[in-house]
């Protein structure tokens, strides 16, 4: 079992004929993901890898393919339009990998996505992986194995590190969700924790947070009220200085808000076991 994506997910790739789009479409297909269509305006009628039809618009692609999930690899200045297009075409799960989407674009996208009742993962995220079933995004599929640990993270390579550590210790993952490192994104920890709580295939959860914002604190409130499954968390950036953006646009301590120690305290208070470093995570799982 899993959340959000599984073997029945029908994936549309926006920006499929670009360098990134092609590269990752190939990887996703190799993993076994069902890629049913691609969209590149002006390239409608083409085929990718002789298997995937390319359409000019999401509207046409969804109509022809029955896609129910879209993954976006278009350049940053066009990403907002791509997200709006996918949601308008009726896609309920949109995953935006693109990094560097302007903030004001994201505020408009977020308002629209919420109004449409769709779910957006990212932007600036590695995507999702349900081991053995479906890979949507850029997570290297071979580092994770099937299992009962749900993983949710704001990071990219740190997530891979954790998936790798879990695999090395003989543990597997139900679904891994990279929610992304931007200050304004589609999905927060709270949303994903709720889905894991309801998923019979997930018995425990690993949460990887970092400095900036209040998402981890909000998650802690949620955990206290509604979550019963055991959670292990690592929060990156205890050593980060205030006022500096640490790579991810959203990873910044501003005016005393967003400190790793505050997040760790909030999570620990509601019974979350805190890992001092990523390699400690397997020992803390049940």
């Amino acid at each position: 079992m899993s959340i959000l994506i599984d073997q029945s997910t029908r994936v549309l790739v926006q920006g499929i004929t670009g360098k990134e789009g092609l590269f990752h479409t190939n990887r996703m297909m190799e993993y076994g993901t069902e890629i049913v269509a691609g969209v590149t305006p002006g390239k409608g009628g083409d085929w990718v890898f002789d298997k995937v039809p390319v359409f000019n618009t999401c509207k046409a692609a969804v109509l022809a393919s029955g896609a129910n999930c879209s993954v976006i690899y278009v350049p940053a200045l066009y990403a907002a339009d791509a997200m709006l297009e996918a949601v308008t075409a009726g896609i309920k799960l949109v995953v935006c990998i693109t990094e560097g989407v302007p903030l004001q674009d994201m505020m408009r996208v977020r308002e629209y996505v919420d109004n449409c009742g769709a779910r957006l993962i990212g932007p600036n995220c590695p995507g999702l992986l349900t081991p053995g079933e479906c890979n949507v995004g850029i997570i290297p599929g071979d580092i994770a194995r099937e299992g009962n640990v749900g993983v949710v993270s704001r990071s990219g390579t740190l997530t891979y590190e954790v998936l790798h550590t879990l695999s090395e210790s003989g543990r597997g993952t139900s679904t891994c969700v990279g929610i992304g490192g931007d200050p304004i994104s589609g999905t927060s920890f709270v949303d994903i924790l709720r889905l894991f709580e309801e998923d019979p295939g997930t018995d425990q959860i690993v949460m990887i947070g970092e400095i900036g914002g209040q998402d981890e604190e909000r998650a802690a409130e949620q955990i206290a009220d509604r979550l019963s499954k055991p959670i292990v968390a690592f929060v990156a950036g205890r050593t980060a200085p205030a006022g500096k953006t640490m790579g991810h646009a959203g990873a910044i301590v501003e005016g005393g808000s967003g400190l790793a120690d505050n997040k760790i305290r909030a999570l620990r208070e509601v019974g979350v076991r805190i890992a001092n470093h990523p390699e400690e995570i397997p020992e803390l799982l049940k």
Partner: protein
Amino acid sequence: MKLYEYQAKKLFAQNGISVSEGYVAVDEEGAKNIASGFGGDVMIKAQVLSGGRGKAGGVKLARNSEDAAMIAGEILRLEIGGYKVRNVLVEPAIVIKKEIYLAITNDRERKCPVLIASGAGGIDIEDVAEQEPDKIAREYVKPFMGLCNYQVRNVASEIDLPSRLWPEFVQIAMALYDAYVENDATIVEINPLVVNEEDALIAVDAKVVLDGNALMRQPEMRENIDWGAGQEYEIEAHRLGLSYVALDGQIGCLVNGAGLAMGTMDIIEYFGGEPANFLDIGGGANEEKVAGALRIILRDDRVKTVLINIFGGITRCDEVARGLIAAMNEVDVEIPIVVRLVGTNKDEGLRLLEDSDLILADSLVDAAKKAIELVKALGKDDRYEHSD
């Protein structure tokens, strides 16, 4: 991506906001001429991209043009928050009846723009927020609807602005919102917005921070950015597409991915070491990037060892290893370097590094411990020599 005060004022003036009159001088002579042109008291204000210039002595009142020349000279010799002062703005001093804070920025929690106003203007708004939170009024903006007049009246009412000033206040706030949207700003701020002797509202200070991600579609703003400001290494890191933040420890860090880079710093500290920097090399750790990153890390002579931590996902470990070897040949490295490679094609990568001088580590914990031992072995006295 911050603009200078004088640039921000120009932008606001273009949008129809009254700003204090002023001219930029690059030397004492210039400041003197501007001051004598105005006559009377003038303010001399350092133009720097860092905050806290008032506390640093970068804003001063001059009584006459001779005084202006002397003060401008002093200010132009200052370095504020790591930035050399290269320009001063000279403006007539104005009589202030009331100071207001007015800004529009992104609210991260609510994922929308927010209009912020306070009757306690002229001072650090974060201090006001902490000490007297009820002195701050906020209105959240629906992105698709934009800021509405009634919202501005709401905050005007909350901060007890006399109603005769409301029409002008609304006009200014609406113009400020336009400036925010049109230029892809992340913050537009007037602090203070002054009520002067004639009961008019004038922007006496102005701040604009632009969204770096949107600069590609803002050609005018791109030209306004002073790309040469700040430290040389920051400029170089930006050129190479690296995220680099200097810290003050002895273990340099070179990592792919922001989260993993922070995690690497944290693990070094957890085992008793001190990270010297944050560095995310981004995707594709090729020769040019690795070499550039090493040069930036090694320019700090407190650095006694470097920990390279690469998770090969999309980027394969053997490619990374080749990049490392080439970079090591290119950069003159005199200190030990610990490398931890993991992920796709790890074995091939490690085999390539076998004959190098690099110290290989099996895991993140192992890498951190090895780096810390190396620093300890170099002797404890060493660190005090450079502890300034």
